[in-house]
């Protein structure tokens, strides 16, 4: 009994970490965060929040957006649960937030979006990549990350340029990202004359690819390239087992594998090409941001989600400046008309989109254990498969 009370105390303490609201001043921009501090989305939401907090700190140091709208973040933990996200969103609306931010996944974002759309509060998902997300919710919902179909188009273009003719795709029905990104790739690749010679499936977190690898090895004719949107822990397990079985087919991956674990695989991942939300070439804004982050926190920015969260701060700054006010609908209209906001990951455009921003995608090759930029830019609209 004693220990149960102890347990209860700890949980309450932890959930109490969400900041309690203070009354807003007239011109204070309230941003509500119904995002995950715990659970399976925390690895994405936590670094995104770190980046956003850094942007907010910088903006507030100059007296707020345009010098007159200081920002206040109200943070609620959703525990990576869609229902809890909707609940948190409702509470934040009740507290009068002007802008809402939802987790790095389409499902909870859509759940919260249903509420914010009705309340007419402009809403960003930190880093959900599903292109259909804003369409499912409505015109107050925005993305903040290169969409799956955009990443897939970049990968397919690269595959064609490399002269690959036969591709094998490995997907998982467990999430929209792991399922749709390879499918968008297949669409793009076939549209450009490529052939899909096989499709494999995996269960996320299963990390046993023995059976799948044995099948790939037996494929005749063998594929020229394997494309997957698997990420941790599946991607490292997959490539380790694939290479262990003696299959050295080139691999195309997506932004999910841009993590220290991937680079920790050493020779196994040499030559793997993947998409990324940004690439820090020397002297680039991203390199400067990373240096600044390290200086301020003492930690290496180990993921692009930090910069991506920071850029969301920049997008909000641009929108509120443009709206010249904090009225939610005015802010929404301003967001929808943003063009080439200078983010540290590259220019960000919302005008003419259905809510998912047009932003550049970097194509990165792993070389000698480091990153090598293959290309960077926004793919032609005609190459991007329909969501």
């Amino acid at each position, binding site marked *: 009994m004693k220990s149960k009370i102890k347990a209860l105390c700890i949980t309450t303490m932890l959930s109490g970490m969400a900041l309690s609201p203070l009354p807003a001043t007239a011109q204070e921009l309230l941003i509500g965060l119904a995002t995950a501090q715990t659970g399976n989305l925390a690895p994405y939401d*936590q*670094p995104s929040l770190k980046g956003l907090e850094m942007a907010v700190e910088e903006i507030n140091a100059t007296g707020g957006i345009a010098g007159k709208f200081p920002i206040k973040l109200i943070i609620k933990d959703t525990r990576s649960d869609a229902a809890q996200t909707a609940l948190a969103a409702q509470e934040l609306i009740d507290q009068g937030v002007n802008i809402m931010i939802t987790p790095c996944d389409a499902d909870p974002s859509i759940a919260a979006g249903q509420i914010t759309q009705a309340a007419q509060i402009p809403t960003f998902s930190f880093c959900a990549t599903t292109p259909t997300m804003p369409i499912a919710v409505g015109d107050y919902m925005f993305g903040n990350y290169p969409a799956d179909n955009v990443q897939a188009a970049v990968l397919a273009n690269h595959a064609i340029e490399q002269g690959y003719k036969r591709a094998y795709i490995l997907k998982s029905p467990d999430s929209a990202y792991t399922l749709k990104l390879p499918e968008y790739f297949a669409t793009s690749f076939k549209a450009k004359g490529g052939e899909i010679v096989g499709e494999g499936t995996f269960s996320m977190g299963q990390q046993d690819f023995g059976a799948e690898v044995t099948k790939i090895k037996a494929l005749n004719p063998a594929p020229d390239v394997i494309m997957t949107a698997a990420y941790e822990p599946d991607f490292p397990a997959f490539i380790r087992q694939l*290479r262990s079985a003696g299959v050295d087919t080139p691999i195309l991956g997506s932004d999910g594998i841009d993590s220290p674990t991937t680079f920790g695989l050493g020779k*196994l991942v040499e030559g793997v090409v993947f998409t990324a939300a940004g690439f820090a070439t020397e002297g680039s804004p991203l390199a400067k941001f990373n240096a600044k982050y390290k200086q301020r926190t003492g930690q290496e920015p180990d993921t692009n989600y930090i910069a991506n969260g920071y850029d969301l701060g920049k997008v909000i700054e641009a929108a509120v400046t443009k709206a010249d006010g904090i009225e939610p609908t005015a802010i929404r209209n301003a967001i929808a008309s943003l063009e080439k906001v200078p983010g540290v990951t590259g220019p960000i455009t919302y005008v003419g989109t259905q809510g998912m921003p047009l932003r550049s995608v970097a194509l990165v090759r792993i070389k000698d254990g480091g990153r090598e930029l293959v290309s960077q830019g926004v793919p032609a609209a005609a190459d991007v498969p329909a969501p």
Partner: protein
Amino acid sequence: MDMFLQQLVNALSLGGTYALLALGLAVVFSIMGLINFAHGELMTAAGYGLIFSLLLGVPFALALPAAVVVAILLAVLMERVAFRSVRGASGTTLLLTSFAVSAIIRVLFQNFISARPMAVRIPMALSGTIEIAGLHLGIIQAISILVTIAMLVGLNLFLHRTVLGRAMRAAAEDFAIVRLMGIRANAVVATAFAISGLLAGVAGVLWVAQRGSVDPLMGFLPVLKAFIAAIIGGLGSLSGAVAGGFLLGFTEVFLQAFLPESLLSYRDAFAIILVIAVLLYAPQGLLARRTVVKL
């Protein structure tokens, strides 16, 4: 045929890991009627043990046992702090306590270590392949099969040759009477937890070697599979847990290997249907055994 043999090896390797985990659950359940859902967190703890040992400059060969020791210590600590005070309580109380322990440990990992996966540098030598008669055997895969066999043999010897081992087998049948032999209940329960920690630690290290990273939530899925395996085998039956683990591993691998592409997405559904079929045929599990859980 080669393909079949290769898949057999794959099944053996996966089934072995499930067997170790299911066995860890069963050891504790057989003694105190507790399904410890925090078992997965023991795997995670072993993973972090490995990472932090390596960060402290411990050589890899020594970091492995250190990681397992971390899992054992956490298991014993769990028993002392959380489960001892509810010993003998109803199954529901025990189950809820274990859920709470699991949730608390996960949140502690997320907030005090890292919400992001942390990479473990596995030596390249372990990423190689052994070729035996045309079969490709990944070194990690081979190690995991060997370690599983060693653990099963070792545990079997412990249970049959030592006083504490015999006491554990006896306690699984009638705990009160074991106490009437002057054997300390706390020692038996702590040993059960230590063994479950050992099994989880070893499985955790094998699991981490395969994935190359540790993240705070990684224990959930394997423990769920282990739970299914233990149910198939008959909860509380040690040999049942091993059989259930291998059966589940074989089912998963062979479904993955031989289901047509269009049905592959339903692999887990098929696996679960098979489990249901087993339970319809033998509701207590394959190797069920009457268990007196009474302290």
